[in-house]
């Protein structure tokens, strides 16, 4: 038996008989039929989970934050006002979270609190969407998550300020895992912007699951910024379920972590629904970043637009598997998928595979993937104007990523990401403007 499985069996403590206890037990029991992925599975061909399943990861403990939050200035979005909820090792930390009056009916709360006080609110949704035959880590999250975020947007409400969820991990040296869980329910005609930040210190494993359910004509703009520590493992799955005329967008920005695996699954389950999936990976050293996306056009007249970009330096590894499914009778579909990658070193590697499964005839699907290096003509052009080689490379690398920043389509967040990228590229903050 794998060390992880042994540890999970020791840690599983659910004994009650409430609805959520049953869900947890089912998830835990399903693990027996869900072997850990191996490279023989197409979806896991390039990502070796042995470092994760081979270690006895215990549940991370509730802790105070050792590094004062204010010291992590960029987490406050350079001062942008946001409805902020901070979690440390998977537990809500009210001291670090913001308090503000919210519009009538809006809930932004700890998921554990809601499960205790008002489970009926959550029952129709939680774990309904987060299921996968090939991914035991989702079931592990369901069986073991401690706390998390619950967002409820009533009909017709538009939130003026973004919701910022910060999932902070802090390890004490022993192998520890947190299972952040986020559930977003957007009722008809509501709109909000949600940013999830994953960050931490030391070596740990984050195993996150987010479910977003959009009612008719609802709009949710979601952005995940992953800035985990260099020793961290980060596995995450985002499920997006869309009703009629809803608009969803997801941005997956991967900057940190030793092994990162992002699954994004959008189910376009009604006519007129549209989804945009964006992804930007910036990896160096021995980082491994695997992005798997699935866009399921289940109903006619649905639209998807996907752009993932990777910038790989050092000995880093990138993976992109983009699957688009058009189900039978889902006519008048438009789907655009692009994956572009920039290799900055000879040792960096990228594996990209678009996969279209089209079972209807009246569809317009385009896809393309490129892997390239910095353009010598552009480099020479910049150098001939006096810029040093390193500066020219940085500028061109930034230029490659710049449309991903613009696609955030929200000024304050664009500025924030621009700062992060330039810092990552070795620019000091004062050089930015």
């Amino acid at each position, binding site marked *: 038996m794998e060390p992880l499985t042994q540890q999970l069996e020791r840690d599983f403590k659910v004994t009650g008989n409430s609805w959520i206890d049953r869900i947890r037990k089912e998830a835990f029991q399903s693990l027996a039929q869900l072997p850990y992925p191996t490279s023989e599975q197409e979806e896991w061909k390039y990502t070796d989970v042995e470092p994760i399943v081979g270690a006895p990861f215990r549940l991370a403990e509730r802790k105070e934050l050792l590094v004062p939050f204010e010291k992590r200035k960029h987490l406050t979005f350079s001062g942008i006002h946001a409805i902020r909820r901070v979690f440390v090792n998977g537990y809500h930390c009210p001291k670090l979270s913001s308090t503000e009056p919210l519009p009538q009916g809006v809930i932004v709360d700890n998921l554990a609190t809601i499960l205790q006080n008002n489970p009926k609110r959550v029952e129709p949704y939680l774990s309904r969407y987060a299921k996968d035959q090939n991914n035991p880590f989702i079931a592990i999250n369901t069986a073991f998550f401690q706390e998390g975020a619950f967002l409820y947007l009533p009909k017709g409400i538009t939130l003026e300020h973004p919701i910022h969820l910060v999932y902070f991990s802090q390890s004490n040296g022993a192998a520890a895992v947190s299972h952040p869980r986020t559930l977003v329910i957007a009722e008809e005609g509501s709109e909000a912007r949600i940013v999830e930040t994953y960050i931490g210190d030391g070596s740990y494993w984050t195993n996150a699951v987010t479910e977003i359910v959009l009612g008719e004509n609802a709009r949710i703009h979601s952005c995940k910024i992953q800035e985990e520590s260099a020793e961290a493992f980060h596995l995450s799955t985002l499920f997006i379920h869309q009703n009629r005329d809803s608009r969803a967008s997801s941005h997956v920005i991967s900057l940190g972590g030793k092994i990162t695996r992002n699954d994004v699954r959008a189910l376009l389950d009604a006519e007129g629904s549209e989804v945009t999936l964006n992804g930007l990976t910036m990896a160096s050293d021995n980082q491994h970043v695997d992005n798997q996306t699935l866009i399921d056009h289940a109903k006619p007249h649905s639209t998807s637009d996907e752009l993932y970009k990777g910038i790989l330096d050092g000995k880093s590894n990138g993976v992109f598997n983009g699957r688009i499914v058009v189900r039978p009778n889902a006519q008048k579909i438009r789907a655009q998928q692009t994956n572009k990658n920039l290799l900055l070193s000879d040792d960096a590697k990228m594996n990209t595979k678009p996969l279209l499964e089209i079972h209807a005839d009246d569809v317009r699907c385009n896809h393309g993937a490129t892997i390239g290096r910095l353009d010598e003509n552009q480099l*020479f052009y910049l150098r001939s*104007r*006096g810029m040093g080689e390193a500066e020219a490379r940085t500028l061109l690398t930034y230029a490659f990523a710049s449309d991903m920043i613009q696609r955030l389509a929200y000024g304050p967040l664009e500025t924030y990401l621009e700062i992060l990228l330039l810092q990552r590229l070795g620019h000091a903050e004062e050089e930015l403007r």
Partner: protein
Amino acid sequence: MLEIRNLHAQVDGKEILKGIHLKMNAGEVHAIMGPNASGKSTLANVLAGRATYAVTQGEILFNGKNLLEMSPEQRAREGIFLAFQYPVDIPGITNSYFLKAALNAVRKYRGLEELDAIDFLSCVREKLKLLKIEESLLNRPVNVGFSGGEKKKNEIVQMAVLDPKLAVLDETDSGLDIDALKVVAEGVNSLRKKENAILLITHYQRLLNYIVPDYVHVLSDGKIVTSGGKDLATQLEEKGYTWVREWNH
């Protein structure tokens, strides 16, 4: 200012320049004319330091320094500017960012204070006004979606901002309508000072109606086959380049 001695250069193993000699002093404008494939662009690129052009023999001195030992950026910082025959598109970088980064790299090297956004903008605005170029150019990504004429004008804007000691214009006039040609000429003439030198590389005599050179050299098959005053350009225009080719033999 510039002294080229017996310069031989290859591209992909093929010898293109076969012994160029050229001397330019500060305050002078030289024109190099020649038919297609005579080596004009090779000379321009060798001066700017493009790595795909291999110098096999000879030397180039720029203000007494060995130019061939310098990286492209060092040459630019020392004061050499090449207006590209085919300016390069750079999506994702605005002209304004590009110009500021270039100007500050050059200023830093010359021991001048780097300009902040406000000082930079007023410096650029002044140049744009002089060249009668719209300010909206600054917010567009470098050369992306620019017409041929706009790209060439953008080269002149860069030249005006960087204020080089030696400007090399590689067929900047080719394919330009008369309005764009006048902008180019205006930009070059404004740089014409006693401490600067300008090297115009061109296929056509037309540009020389607007920028009158002190010297004209004719390049053919990798060598300067004749040199003279501005009248040489007029003669060339009348007689055509076949007249020149005979001199190689």
